[in-house]
Every structure is written in structure tokens, then in C-alpha cells.
């Protein structure tokens, strides 16, 4: 059964945002504008809950944003509709429901700029494409620099971005203050702000709505979304996978596409396929609802915290992964403590905000902080993983290129640099500077 209650883990949903709640004084203070009053009501049923068929042309493992987007572009760009998306839990309840929704494309290398910028352009038209609100808000992102080397690296990245057609500027501290007045730009703090890169087209979106929008569209197109269906094994014939074993029976398939984020290794181990992935807990948290104080997104790799203010008013904050491998969807408290210390130094105004809730996801990191997308040694098994801490922004972009790769049995040009064999050829796409672990 799919009910909207299945999504009550939405980090944004602790306080009802209805006019009734405001009238009863359940919202914080007496706002001039009720935070979130402009949010659409939660939707009714958006997709069916079918029994799995015996066979599909394409089986996608993982009903997160990536799996759903892949199904969407299989339908839309390639006319492939005999598709199932298998999800062990509930739809988009993994990292998709847990991430902090930052969307940007200011990556250093040409290969990354190409795929993330492709994605950002799709975000800009996604609401129309899906016919569904996703609250994409292009409020810009500041990436702060705190040391001379940070400044040099940042300016280099801005120049690289501009050459790749990505909007990017270098801002001096007084310009940073104009974009986000609450950033502490005084020179006497431990890590003074020496400037920032700025990407005005970056933004946030409402992650659940993105998942539901894709789900609704692909359901209309005839794709089966099957929740509560865990893939537990593969049926094989030499170099081909002929079907998947699931908790709801065996399902035959022409092609299999893995989009299982932090759980990829569990699946690839069943295929005897080794992938250079390490799964880590990644935590995030929100404050209570506040009046609009934070107009943009601010991230800092050096003191490690990043912040945006959600549509309803919470400050949404994240930091780095917990150091150890983990599958537990929670992390250690000292990681949160450090992140809070960094946040309060950068934003003294946060000192009195209450922390409302923390949660964790399982992210899949690679040695070069870039994803793995493409073919595998199996003829008909395709791999999408390794997006680590930053794959939400890629959702439409990777859906597009992964669908193309699956449909044509060869990597889309934007996916080609991210093949599994780059770890053997040595053609790494080292994005530690622009990706790890800021989002």
C-alpha cells in the first residue's frame, strides 16, 4: 500500500505548515508571512502499487531519484516502457529523502562540469517536464575560501567553470556580505572569510516532490514501481543476467540497471563484481523554523559546514561523512558537534537557534570523489553508483545519460569518462577539491 504517510520521515515535516497550525499558534512566533504557506498540500495517491510481472525489458534496482529519473528518460527519450523500478523500502525513502538538496554545477574538471551542467539545465525545465511542482529555487551558492591556497584554488575553479559555460564569479569578502549579510566576514576569527566563489544559478529543490513527480510521470507511462521488493540475488547465464531474485519472487529481465546508492556493494558482491566503493554514514540536521534570514546557500570546505534555509524556514545543515564505513543510516554525535561549532562561528546569529532533528543516510564514496556510470563486465548489467555525498543535484542529468547508456548498450558521451575501468587505466576524475565532501 502506498499512502502519503509513507513519507512522514521527510525532514521538513515535523511542524504542520497549514493555516490551521498557524492559527493555533503551533508555528514559531507571529510571522508576517507564514513560513511555507506557499507550499502545495501533500499530494494524494500519485502512482499505483502493482504486483510484479514475470518479466520486463529493463529492471532498475533502487527507487531513489536516480532510478526514477532513469525510468523517466527511458520512456521519454527512448520509448522503452516495459520497465520495473524495484525498491526494497518505500519510494525515494533512501538518500533521496535524507539529502540537503543542494544543486550546483561548479565542478573543476571538464568531465564533471559537462554532466552536472547538463543536469542543472534539466532542473531548470523539470517542473514543466514533470507537470508537477518541485520548488526549484535558484538562490545561488557561495563556496567560502579561508586560506590563501583556498583563494587560489577557488579562482582557478571559477576560471575553469567559465571556460565550460558554467556561471561562476569570484567575490571579495565585502561582496560576500552583500549576497549573504549574516556571514561573519570579520578578520579576527579563526578561519576568516577571504572571499568566495559564487554560482547564481545554483539552488535547492523539494526532494520528496522531485521523487513523487518522477514517480507520477513514469507510472502514467506504464512503468511498474514496486515497493517493498528487495533484490536478493541474480539469475545468470554466462555473461548475462537473465533475472533478479527478489523478496517478491523471481523477475526475468532483458537488462538490469543498478541504482542502489550506498547499498551497491551488497548487490555487486552477489554478482562477483568488485567496485571501488566505500559506504559511509552521512548526517544532516535542521533547526526550528525561522523567519527568512539566509538568502542563499553557503558552504565551507575548510571549517566544514554548509547551510541553506528551507522553503518553510528551517536552517538545513550538513557536513562531511563519518570516517568509518557504515550501513546504519545514522552517525556519531561528535561529527554534528563539530559542524555546529563551525556553523556558529560563521553565522553568530545561529547561536540561539534550536536544533530540531538529525538523521543520516548511507552514501557511496569512490577514490576520486567522482561517480561510476556505465557498463560492467556483464553484457546486460549497467552500473550507476559512487555519487557519494553529492548525487541529488545529478538526478535528472544522470537519469538522462544512464537511460541513454542502457538503451544503446554504450556509454553516453557524458557518462563515458565515469566508467568503472578508469581505476585500471588511471584516467581518474579527481574532484576532491570541488566535490568532497561539500555538496
Amino acid at each position, binding site marked *: 500500500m502506498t499512502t502519503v504517510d509513507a513519507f512522514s520521515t521527510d525532514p521538513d515535516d515535523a511542524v504542520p505548515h497549514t493555516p490551521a497550525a498557524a492559527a493555533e499558534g503551533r508555528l514559531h512566533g507571529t510571522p508576517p508571512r507564514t513560513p511555507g504557506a506557499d507550499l502545495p498540500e501533500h499530494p494524494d495517491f500519485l502512482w499505483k502499487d502493482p504486483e510484479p510481472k514475470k518479466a520486463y525489458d529493463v529492471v532498475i534496482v533502487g527507487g531513489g531519484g536516480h532510478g526514477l529519473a532513469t525510468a523517466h528518460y527511458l520512456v521519454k527519450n527512448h520509448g522503452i516502457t516495459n520497465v520495473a523500478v524495484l525498491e526494497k523500502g518505500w519510494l525515494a525513502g533512501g538518500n533521496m529523502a535524507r539529502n540537503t538538496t543542494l544543486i550546483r554545477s561548479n565542478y573543476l574538471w571538464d568531465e564533471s562540469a559537462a554532466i552536472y551542467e547538463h543536469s542543472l539545465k534539466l532542473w531548470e525545465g523539470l517542473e514543466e517536464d514533470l507537470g508537477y511542482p518541485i520548488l526549484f529555487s535558484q538562490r545561488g551558492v557561495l563556496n567560502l575560501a579561508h586560506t590563501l591556497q583556498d583563494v587560489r584554488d577557488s579562482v582557478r575553479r571559477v576560471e575553469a567553470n567559465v571556460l565550460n559555460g558554467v556561471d561562476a564569479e569570484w567575490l571579495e569578502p565585502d561582496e560576500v556580505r552583500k549576497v549573504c549579510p549574516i556571514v561573519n566576514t570579520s578578520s579576527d576569527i579563526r578561519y576568516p572569510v577571504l572571499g568566495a566563489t559564487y554560482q547564481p544559478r545554483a539552488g535547492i529543490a523539494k526532494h520528496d516532490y522531485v521523487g513523487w513527480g518522477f514517480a507520477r510521470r513514469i507510472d502514467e507511462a506504464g512503468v511498474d514501481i514496486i515497493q517493498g521488493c528487495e533484490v536478493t540475488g541474480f539469475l545468470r547465464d554466462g555473461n548475462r543476467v537473465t533475472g533478479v531474485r527478489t523478496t517478491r519472487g523471481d523477475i526475468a529481465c532483458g537488462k538490469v540497471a543498478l541504482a542502489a546508492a550506498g547499498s551497491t*556493494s*551488497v548487490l555487486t558482491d552477489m554478482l562477483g563484481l*568488485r567496485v571501488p566503493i*566505500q*559506504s559511509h554514514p552521512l548526517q544532516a540536521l535542521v533547526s526550528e523554523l525561522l523567519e527568512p534570514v539566509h538568502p542563499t546557500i553557503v558552504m565551507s570546505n575548510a571549517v566544514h559546514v554548509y547551510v541553506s534555509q528551507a522553503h518553510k524556514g528551517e536552517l538545513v545543515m550538513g557536513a562531511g561523512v563519518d570516517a568509518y*564505513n557504515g*550501513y546504519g543510516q545514522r552517525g556519531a*554525535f561528535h561529527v554534528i558537534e563539530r559542524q555546529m561549532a563551525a556553523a556558529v562561528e560563521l553565522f553568530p546569529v545561529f547561536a540561539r537557534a534550536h536544533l530540531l532533528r538529525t538523521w543520516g543516510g548511507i552514501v557511496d564514496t569512490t*577514490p576520486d570523489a567522482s561517480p561510476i556510470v556505465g557498463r560492467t563486465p556483464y553484457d546486460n548489467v549497467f552500473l550507476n553508483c559512487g555519487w557519494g555525498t553529492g548525487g541529488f543535484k545529478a538526478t535528472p542529468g544522470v537519469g538522462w545519460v544512464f537511460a541513454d547508456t542502457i538503451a544503446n548498450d554504450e556509454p553516453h558521451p557524458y557518462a563515458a569518462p565515469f566508467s568503472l575501468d578508469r581505476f*585500471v587505466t588511471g584516467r581518474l576524475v579527481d574532484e576532491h577539491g570541488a566535490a568532497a565532501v561539500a555538496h
Partner: protein
Amino acid sequence: MQMIQCPWCGPREEVEFHYGGQAHVPYPSEPAALSDEEWAHYLFFRDNTRGLYAERWSHSSGCRKWFNAVRDTVTYRFHATYRPDEPRPVTA
């Protein structure tokens, strides 16, 4: 915060330690004989076990020595810690 049992210093708080990834990954005995693929696996590929995992930790704010641990990657509970020259203990 977890207490971690350093084999030399005894139980100390997690913040004193540094994580070092999978344990028992020996340096290739004949490095010159390795193919590119074998090198890639030595350098970049590690197990990513869901469950009991043997891994390395360093007591970086204490004795600064490396040791091994068997930890459950789902519950995060440490089942054993042991010195690098000791074999992986049998744990449940």
C-alpha cells in the same frame, strides 16, 4: 560517543582515533609482477562489507599506534580490537 579499546592504552573515546579502512590488505609480495588491473585492485578496491568488517584504526591522539578491529558496519559495535601482528579473532 563510542569507547574504543586501544590494545595498548585501554578504553578511550572515539574522537581520539583515526579510521584507516580495511585491515589485512598486504603489500604485493612481487610488485613488479603485477598487471595494471592487479595494481588497481591493490590501490583502489576494498571490501565494503555489510556486517562484521576487519578494519584498521590508529590511536592518533594517544599512543599513535595502529591496530585492527572487527566492527559491525550496521550497528557500529566493536566486537574486538587486536594488535596488527595478531590474526583476526573469531567473533560473533
